[in-house]
């Protein structure tokens, strides 16, 4: 999924660079014209004339594309309420915390009571029996 965001951002950056160069050329042309005209007549061009409309449209479109690309490249948000977060860990385990390239995120803590639950007196033996039975079946 990360290639979509990278592609969009790269395309937007290309468009932005193109419109930047076009605007630079336009402004350079304006000053050149003004310089050659002022050698003939006393009138001066306004220091900043309006950009052509297509450069403006290209700039806005490039900006929006880059913005979209960057937003698509952000990582998934995590719920902040404790019960929602803990429920998500119990139901989905690691699969709910994958980052864009499919690996588990680096600061994933996991079940916060992991150490408590593995104490001998608190082991859930029925759940472990069920897991073992499924593993034997799947072998």
């Amino acid at each position, binding site marked *: 999924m990360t290639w979509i965001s990278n592609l969009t951002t790269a395309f937007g950056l290309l468009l932005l660079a193109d419109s*930047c160069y076009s605007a630079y050329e336009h402004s350079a042309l304006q000053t050149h014209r003004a310089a050659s005209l002022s050698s003939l007549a006393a009138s001066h061009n306004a220091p900043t004339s309006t950009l052509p409309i297509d450069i403006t449209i290209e700039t806005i479109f490039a900006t929006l594309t880059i*913005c979209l690309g960057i937003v698509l490249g952000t990582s998934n*948000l995590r719920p902040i309420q404790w019960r929602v977060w803990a429920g998500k860990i119990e139901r989905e385990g690691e699969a709910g915390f994958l980052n864009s390239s499919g690996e588990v995120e680096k600061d994933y*803590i996991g079940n916060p009571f992991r150490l408590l639950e593995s104490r001998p007196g608190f082991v859930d033996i029925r759940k472990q029996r069920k897991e073992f039975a499924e593993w034997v079946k799947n072998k």
Partner: protein
Amino acid sequence: MPTERELQISPIVPESVMHNTKTLSNLQTLTASIFGAAAGILGLESYSGFLFYFIFGVLATVLFYTIRVAPTSLKAGHGLFDTSRYFRTQYEFWTGGLFNGLAGYILTWTLFYGLVRA
């Protein structure tokens, strides 16, 4: 802000809060630089330049909301524009990064304005 008692009944995960605010502020700083480049290219001056930044800043946040917050938040039953699943206050979500990105915006704005206007 929730009271101490409300925080005891439904606690908040600080690691998630940190991750979410880091993601959002990264996004806003990065897009602010890009908006600065666009404003420099378009040759915007004083008031229109700042107006451009605030409008596009809000636009970027709305885009972030529709892509990252809305799908899971609306499915979980929160109302429209309710960010309480991922962020503590709405104010923090919508306006928190605006003044952080302003510095980067002005930087690239003046840079590109000077570059393009020769």
